[in-house]
């Protein structure tokens, strides 16, 4: 805790700067405070520091007031505030601060989505502008879990209020204390390591139906925040003077990014997006807008890109120097008629790759640089060839929805999974076709090396490499080894099921895509069916990595990039071997068969 004067200056300087572009609902609301010198001050609490409370008046003035100078009632109020906003012991410094405000007179949070980085320490301030009490509870990911927790809160009955309406429930992860009307309550928590969507909800009886949102835990942090859009209707040939036109409405952008999904309008309309963008470091930033029709991009209210006029979808870029920190960003757009599209992206000083600030990808004029990208349409696209990372007998599969896989038929394993574009055939389809081609797309995760099944009689026994088939080798003349048997195509999407034998066992391995590249629930499910007379001490090696952690929902986190969950007769075993961690699934036979069901998620 520093010198009051320093803090005072900090608040005086900080709030006005942060106040640019912020909507007026940030104001914590007013309560009338009684100063011992007779003054009545209408203000909301911003913070309590040492023996002072920092108050903010509705017209934005901030200043400290000695606690001792306030009425007994006020001091009790402040004591409760401290309880509801205290930093838990040992929490340390938060990595990210997020503010959610409850809308006045409505049972709604001002933000339907927040995004946090996995494992980071979060300070979430719930500012309650309403006349009722509210709280914020974050539950485990999964459909309906928020409602289950809220329903449990109802059952608290007469004890509910005293317990801040926080119930005991296995699906509840974190919950703030209740925020008094026109006050705030702060929730300090560590974001889950497992990426995904975690619902949040107000658990006061009757609130949960409408008062909810989603916390997205993702490595892809959206640098945009507080993004709103204002819709205008009209026919223009150039970007109009927005101040001269009556807007049709303003709202938060549900996707949190620049795109036209926020409106159903197709022709004769305009949108002005406003929000903040967080620059991760100081340096030169290159923004790109691709739009049909005209658009403009402003940073800190200065035009960086002017791409005005009636034109088809085409990109235009502009460079701007930014200091590390938050900046105001505004994108103006209008559509005359015909096709409409909007894309915004940026390149930060670190990255050579352009990062989309829109949900859609940058429309490309053709494939990757003079490539021959293969793609699945309604059916899976198979590509057997030399694939880098999957060996000389690689079988590439591009599934509809932008999920992809490469199978290594030398060792009967899934070598790689990735998202987005499938693979470029240009190398192999031109000239004499020499060499290995890596996957296209992004987010490549590697499957464990070596063969998938082995008998392990004691926990120190290493996973055998005697079955491994080196690339240029003939079939290893090992009795009871692996033999690739091919694949069959089934279903409307004709996805492959890979087949092989291991000794006397016949195995069918069927990976299936779930969701699509753009959706956050993208994953692979996989069923491995084993048939044959039971083999003792048989294990399936599901993962090899530096770190393998069991997290909630029976999920195993592998090296912070892959999450695996299993349905199998026996529980998976984590062991250390050969300097690595391994995840082994013991195989339990019944009626001469066994089944492993696995879900693979990107982290």
């Amino acid at each position, binding site marked *: 805790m520093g010198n009051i004067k320093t803090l005072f200056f900090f608040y005086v300087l900080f709030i006005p700067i942060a106040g640019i572009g912020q909507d007026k609902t940030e104001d914590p609301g007013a309560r009338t405070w009684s100063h011992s010198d007779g003054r009545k001050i209408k203000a909301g609490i911003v913070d309590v520091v040492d023996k002072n409370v920092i108050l903010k008046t509705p017209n934005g003035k901030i200043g400290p007031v000695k606690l001792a100078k306030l009425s007994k009632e006020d001091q009790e109020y402040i004591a409760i505030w401290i309880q509801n906003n205290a930093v838990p012991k040992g929490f340390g410094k938060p990595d990210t601060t997020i503010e959610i405000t409850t809308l006045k007179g409505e049972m709604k949070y001002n933000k339907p989505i927040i995004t946090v980085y996995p494992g980071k320490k979060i300070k979430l301030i719930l500012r309650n502008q309403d006349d009722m009490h509210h709280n914020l509870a974050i539950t485990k990911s999964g459909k309906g879990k928020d409602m289950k927790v809220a329903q449990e809160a109802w059952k608290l009955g007469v004890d509910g209020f005293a317990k801040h309406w926080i119930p005991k429930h296995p699906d509840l992860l974190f919950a703030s204390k209740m925020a008094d009307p026109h006050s705030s309550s702060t929730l300090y928590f560590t974001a889950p390591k497992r990426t995904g969507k975690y619902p949040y909800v107000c658990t006061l009886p009757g609130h949960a139906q409408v008062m909810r949102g989603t916390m997205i835990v993702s490595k892809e942090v959206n640098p945009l925040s507080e993004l709103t859009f204002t819709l205008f209707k009209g026919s223009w040939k150039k970007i109009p003077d927005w101040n001269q036109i009556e807007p049709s409405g303003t709202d938060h952008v549900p996707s949190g990014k620049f795109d036209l999904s926020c409106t159903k309008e197709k022709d004769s309309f305009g949108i002005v997006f406003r929000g903040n963008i967080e620059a991760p470091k100081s340096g030169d930033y290159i923004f790109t807008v691709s739009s049909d029709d005209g658009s403009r991009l402003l940073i800190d209210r200065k035009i960086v890109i002017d791409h005005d006029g009636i034109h088809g979808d085409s990109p235009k870029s502009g460079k701007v120097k930014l200091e590390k920190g938050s900046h105001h960003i505004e994108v103006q757009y209008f559509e005359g008629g015909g096709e409409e599209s909007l894309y915004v992206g940026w390149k930060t000083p670190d990255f050579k790759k352009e990062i989309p600030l829109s949900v859609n990808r940058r429309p490309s004029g053709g494939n990757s640089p003079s490539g021959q990208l293969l793609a699945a349409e309604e059916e899976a696209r198979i590509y057997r060839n030399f694939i880098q990372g999957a060996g000389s007998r690689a079988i590439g599969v591009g599934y509809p929805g932008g999920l992809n896989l490469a199978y290594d038929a030398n060792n009967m394993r899934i070598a790689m999974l990735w998202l987005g574009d499938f693979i470029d055939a240009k190398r192999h389809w031109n000239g004499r*076709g020499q060499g290995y081609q890596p996957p296209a797309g992004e987010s490549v995760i590697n499957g464990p090396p070596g063969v998938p099944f082995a008998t392990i009689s004691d926990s120190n026994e290493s996973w055998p490499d005697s079955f491994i088939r080196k690339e*240029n080798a003939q079939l290893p003349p090992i009795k009871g080894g692996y033999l690739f048997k091919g694949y069959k195509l089934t279903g409307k999407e004709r996805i492959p099921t890979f087949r092989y034998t291991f000794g006397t066992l016949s195995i069918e391995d069927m990976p299936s895509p779930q969701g699509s590249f753009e959706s956050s629930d993208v994953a692979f499910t996989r069923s491995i069916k084993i048939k044959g007379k039971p083999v003792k001490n048989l294990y399936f090696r599901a993962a090899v990595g530096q770190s393998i952690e069991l997290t909630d929902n029976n999920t195993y986190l592998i090296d912070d990039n892959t999450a695996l969950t299993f349905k199998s007769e026996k529980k998976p075993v984590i062991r250390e071997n050969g300097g690595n961690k391994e995840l082994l699934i013991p195989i339990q036979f019944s009626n001469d068969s066994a089944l492993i069901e696995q879900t693979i998620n990107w982290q």
Partner: protein
Amino acid sequence: MKKIIYSLLITISVSSLALSQNPQEESDHYPIVEIPIPDNIVLEVGGIEILPGKRIAVSSRRGDIYVVEGAYTDDPGDDKWIPWAIGLHEVLGLAWKDGWLYATQRPEVTRMKDEDGDFRADIFESVSSAWGINGDYHEYAFGSRHDPDGNIWVVLCLTGSGGASSDFRGWCVRVTPDGKMLPTTSGIRSPGGIGQNHLGDMFYCDNQGVWNGTSSIKPLPVGGFVGNPTGNKYYELTDAIGKRPEDPKSGSRISTERAKIPELVPPAAMFPHGKLSNSPTGIACDTSGKFGPFTNQLFVGEQTMSTVLRVALEKVNGVYQGAAFPFRGKFKSGNVAVRLGPDGSMFVGGTDRGWGARGGKRFALERCHFNGKKPFEVLQMKAKPDGFEVIFTEPIEEKSGSDIASYKMDSYTYIYQSGYGSPVVDKSNPTIKSASVSQDKKSVYLKIEGLVKGNVHELNLPGIKNVEGKALLHQVGYYTLNEIPEN
């Protein structure tokens, strides 16, 4: 004056030897029809197979297999192309058997079936993937149809076409019906195609290169060594065909090394480089007799020259040998796959990617057939202890037939060496002493002095006429004389 006239005549007749085949006249007997390919298909033919019900299957180097309907007509404008399988790894051999389509692709022999009747393969069974592949594009695998025992024969190109970095490169292996791989013949270098003759004996074509002075068609006897020792290190991996043979001495001749190495099998017919062939490929045998007068002879695709050759073989002292003849030119692309249908239709598919071809098109699928008009050709040449018997497709005119000036013979061979290819060496001019026309006028016995065992004997017949006074359609044959018969 006479001397000058004679020498002029000789000059003219010698220079006429440089004349290519008579392409216009070839089409009088063997017209070619191009089968239209849909715009969205990049065909680059690797394999063709005859299917039941007047359909054919065609595989592409991009790994796709199409079933084509309507390819048999002379006016195939309504041909239908059905994508049967997509995404295999460079299919260079197709075989249909018992409801399954077998494909030899780079990593394995696969068999496929359409289970649900939607005209597309649903099951892909890996029959055998037993050989090594390491990512080098040269490591091609060409596969045959099933032999009478139900085996598919696969010839495996050397790594980089001259090295052996993966197990069993440079070998021919047989894949049995139950998926075992049997190493069969060693000594392969860079195959272009594989096929059986009417007796069920397997042959393949090898390209000029290391240990191959010129391209040729070679037999594949079980346990034999067909010349290139680079892959012989893999005798260590198998007992299937006995001990590793002695390595040949570089710079020698095949006939010399044969005397030292009992396993060494000579080419059945050498194809003089640059004259007849640069890159021979697919092999088809006319067992039906519906493809003209050449029953039981072999037809070989030629990639560089966009032609099809003809090979007439015999066995002398147990060794395959015989003559190679030009047959048909003017195909549209670099011929790779050649298949004969039961009605005598010859389907030829080509590609020129990676290696140029005279034809000009990136890829093509064509149908060549015999239109019933028998061509006037040398049917075959038979080696005799003191010359050759030359048999024609129809009776010849006695006068030209018995005139030794109607013929010219050259003999030469190639160095059998570890270097790439070879110039023509050991040239000689065997003398034709006499030419006796047979009773039925369909053959001539040429008594020749100076035959050389192991050499190519190139016979030119510019002076031969048939009873109508017409010259031969093709006036040259190249006989590889591995053995001279005793009687």
